């Protein structure tokens, strides 16, 4: 016994790190995943760089900085690499600031809706009976409401929405899809022998949900999160394009709105194309990330890579 | 001449982690009308061997070496076209867990008739159904249950239907891969008797694969014991059971609880089955063998004949090893 105690144990604090490494090994082999990840790294760099231009010169403030020498939209030049908009604001700084907003909106809205959806799905699936019925009816009701329309109505009611309100609305309206998937997963887990083993050991419902069900549905939630990011970015862009964006921040959708409103749609490709391409690319990147994650989470593949 | 003669067969799989040596240097022969049983722990290459004989290995499987002489011709030299004719017509297989592969939306007898029709172009639909009726009678499925759907069958009946399917073309060789695993004892007993009777009645040769040594003991004339991709002992049933030579066979036999005789202590085989991507050097059993000597780790095990119909692959057998 004493010998036993003095023996140094090889209990890893974070054994799941190994699995992460195994997952990364699979991910690395996926071409789509690599492209997606590279794109995301690029956008992340852009978002970080968005702080630089205003430091160089106040005229590079994306929203308020105006080049005093320019009064109309101009094409790319040394001074303005991507050109300026109708008021002489720098397009590159706007594009970079837009990246930041896209990440902020996309990731936080997706994160919130996933947290909501996962929690509700697990509770509905695990508790069953009327809790399940009630939550799923609610989900159905929200699911049939077109998010866009609701947001537009709210915007019409309350005037301009701040970026955080938009995030919140997207989160509140986008959980039902996730919760349905998580509920189905929970239902299939609920009667698995390992859950029953926990019940035999005397585990409480909360413990079973958080300790045994949650780790098994989280990978799926995470997968859905990557797809949700895509839809959140698109919703925000669409809102901004329709003129309901947060007026204190520049987003890509807003840039597009300005092109449209000032009649530069067909005259200034240097203005129209960058935000358009960025929106397509970032949504594509998250989509590719999701696809690759899908493969990482595939238990058959995981087994191959995991066994010694 | 033997109906089937397998010489120095080596089979492997290409996997992400490297080449897996699933079957290595296996040779045996099977006479017309006889049955040969392969026993070994799961993962020792039994299914792989059976699939290779049917030339139905998955795409990442390769037959690296060896010959499989069936009825005088080498199966490995046959074209895909020729092989398709041999399958079912001459060699039929009862796949592991095949009974769960019956299509739930079609009636059982239709599925069997379908199989007959695809492998035998010379008969028409009506004849095929007549044949099915005969076959079902043969394997003991009552006539009035013929038109049922698979889910209406019990496990034993499904397995009977699968056996009927294998018999459909009156093959000369049947390869049965764990045909009774997952069945209850009583049903298992009935199916085994059925298989034995049919085999005797039609003089079909059979290769019977199982992880359960007691079943093979009841069914087969000859027994081959496999360990980690190698055939380690081969001989007549009586010889192998009354006079096991290889330490692994002895270990297998003493790890199996029996109903009769002394209720002794079971002696499980210590350790785990080896990794076949990097198989152990020398004798593959050396790290679990109670009688292993230093030489077993390095030297190549050799075939020792303990009697004319009984041989074993062991470095030091003959001198009584494993004691």
């Amino acid at each position, binding site marked *: 016994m004493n010998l036993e105690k003095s023996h140094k144990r090889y209990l890893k604090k974070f054994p799941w790190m190994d699995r992460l490494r195994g997952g990364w090994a699979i991910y690395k082999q996926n071409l789509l995943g690599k492209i997606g990840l590279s794109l995301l790294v690029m956008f992340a760099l852009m978002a970080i760089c968005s702080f630089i231009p205003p430091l160089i010169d106040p005229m590079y403030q994306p929203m308020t900085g105006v080049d005093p020498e320019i009064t109309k939209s101009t094409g790319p030049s040394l001074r303005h690499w991507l050109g300026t908009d109708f008021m002489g604001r720098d397009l590159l700084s706007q594009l970079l600031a837009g990246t930041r907003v896209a990440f902020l909106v996309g990731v936080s809205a997706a994160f919130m809706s996933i947290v909501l959806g996962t929690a509700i799905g697990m509770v509905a699936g695990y508790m069953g009976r009327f809790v399940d019925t009630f939550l799923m009816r609610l989900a159905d009701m929200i699911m049939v409401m077109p998010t866009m329309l609701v947001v537009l109505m709210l915007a019409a009611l309350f005037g301009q929405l701040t970026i955080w309100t938009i995030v919140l609305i997207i989160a509140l309206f986008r959980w039902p899809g996730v919760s349905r998937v998580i509920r189905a997963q929970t239902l299939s887990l609920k009667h698995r022998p390992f859950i029953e083993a926990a019940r035999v050991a005397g585990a409480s419902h909360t413990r079973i949900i958080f300790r045994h069900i949650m780790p098994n549905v989280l990978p799926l939630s995470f997968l859905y999160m990557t797809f949700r990011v895509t839809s959140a970015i698109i919703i925000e862009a669409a809102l901004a394009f329709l003129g309901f964006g947060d007026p204190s921040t520049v987003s890509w959708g807003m840039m597009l709105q300005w092109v449209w409103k000032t009649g530069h749609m067909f005259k200034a490709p240097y203005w129209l194309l960058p935000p358009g391409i960025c929106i397509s690319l970032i949504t594509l990147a998250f989509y590719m990330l999701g696809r690759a994650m899908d493969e990482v989470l595939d238990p058959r593949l995981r087994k191959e890579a995991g066994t010694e | 001449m033997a109906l089937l003669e397998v010489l120095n067969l080596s089979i492997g799989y290409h996997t992400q982690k490297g080449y897996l040596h699933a079957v290595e240097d296996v040779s045996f022969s099977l006479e017309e009308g006889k049955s040969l049983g392969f026993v070994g722990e799961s993962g020792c290459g039994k299914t792989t061997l059976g699939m290779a004989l049917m030339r139905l290995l998955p795409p990442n499987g390769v037959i690296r070496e060896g010959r499989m002489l069936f009825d005088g011709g080498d199966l490995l030299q046959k074209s895909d076209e020729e092989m398709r004719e041999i399958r079912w017509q001459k060699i039929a297989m009862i796949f592991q867990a095949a009974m769960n592969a019956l299509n739930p939306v079609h009636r059982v007898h239709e599925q069997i008739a379908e199989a007959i029709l695809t492998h035998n172009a010379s008969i028409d639909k009506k004849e095929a159904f007549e044949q099915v009726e005969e076959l079902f009678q043969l394997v003991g499925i009552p006539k009035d249950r013929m038109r049922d759907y698979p889910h209406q069958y019990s496990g034993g009946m499904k397995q009977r239907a699968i056996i009927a399917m294998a018999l459909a073309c009156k093959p000369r060789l049947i390869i049965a891969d764990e045909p009774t695993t997952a069945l209850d004892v009583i049903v298992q007993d009935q199916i085994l008797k059925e298989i034995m009777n049919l085999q005797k009645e039609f003089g079909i040769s059979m290769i019977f694969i199982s992880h359960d040594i007691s079943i093979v003991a009841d069914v087969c004339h000859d027994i081959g014991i496999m360990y980690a991709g190698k055939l380690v002992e081969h001989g007549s049933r009586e010889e192998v059971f009354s006079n096991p030579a290889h330490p692994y066979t002895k270990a297998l036999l003493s790890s199996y609880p029996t*109903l009769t005789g002394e209720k002794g202590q079971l002696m499980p085989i210590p350790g785990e089955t080896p990794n076949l991507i990097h198989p152990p050097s020398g004798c593959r059993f050396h790290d679990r063998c109670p009688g292993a000597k230093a030489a077993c780790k390095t030297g190549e095990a050799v075939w020792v004949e303990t009697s004319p119909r009984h041989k074993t692959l062991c470095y030091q057998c003959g001198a009584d090893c494993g004691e």
Partner: protein
Amino acid sequence: MKMNNDRETIIELEHIVKKYTSRGFFFGTRGNEIIALNKISIKILKGEIFGLVGESGSGKTTAGRLIVRLEKPEEGRIYLNGREMAGLKGKALKNFHRKVQMIFQDPYQSLNPQLSVFDTISEPLVIHKIGNTEDREDAVWQTMKSVGLSPPDDFVNRYPHQLSGGQRQRVAIARAMVLNPDFVVADEPTSMLDASISAQIFNILIEMREKFQVTLLFITHSLSAARYLCDRIAVIYKGNMMELGSADQVIQKPRHPYTKALIDALPKFGLSGKVKHYNTLLPVEREASEHEGCPFFARCRVANKAKCSLERPLLKETDDSHWVACFYAENGTEKGF
């Protein structure tokens, strides 16, 4: 064998009836009612390994699940140490979960794929708030060694998919044993494993009994495994108790035609010709009512049609603590078996 003389009962099932209703094809319709257990009474004595033997669907698992409270009986009572289980609440219930554990049939399904071996085995300790981190580590290490997962260092950080079937079942046994329970239900713990690995698991279970004085309900479909492990054996068929007695009585001198059929069906290691056959099984089932008469009547070769098809035989003691539910257990039928 090494049984205590006082023979205290630890678990008692009393007239247990368990029914399942399969859901009907349409909404609201009730499907068939399946009687999984029909008035079963069993007393399991402290320290013994009690074997429950039967074909699949005979109700073995159901009995085990009732004992660990994963299921509730429709009728009858279950007692642990003389105390009825049905009404347990709060602390008493928690205490119950400490004392009664289960090992499940399929080790590929009974371990949480997302928990490491250490987390899995220490889980019951955490649930019952036993010891501090270090005590728990000690307990896990000790238990792992006693189930043959050694050195534990090699295994604690692994996940189920990195273990073989036999190793997984050892982890499952360790999880059941770590709380030092009084009673463990082992539901066909080796049916998914190879014969050679099964023997390892059997020996571990026997060691557990010696080491921890635990009582085991060993559920199996194999009489030879039951013979090796168990002190007493109960044979059940379609939820009915058929025969109950010491392992030697049931296997050496079986009295029920069904038990005899089970023994006949076991592989004989190529000795079929030399072994005595009881021959009590009809090759083709005969027509029989589901609800009347002896449950085994449809397949029983030695049945007396006039009696067996109408009346249900009761469990009767034939000789010393050897119970059989057959009219002709003692002297055979007129056909003379």
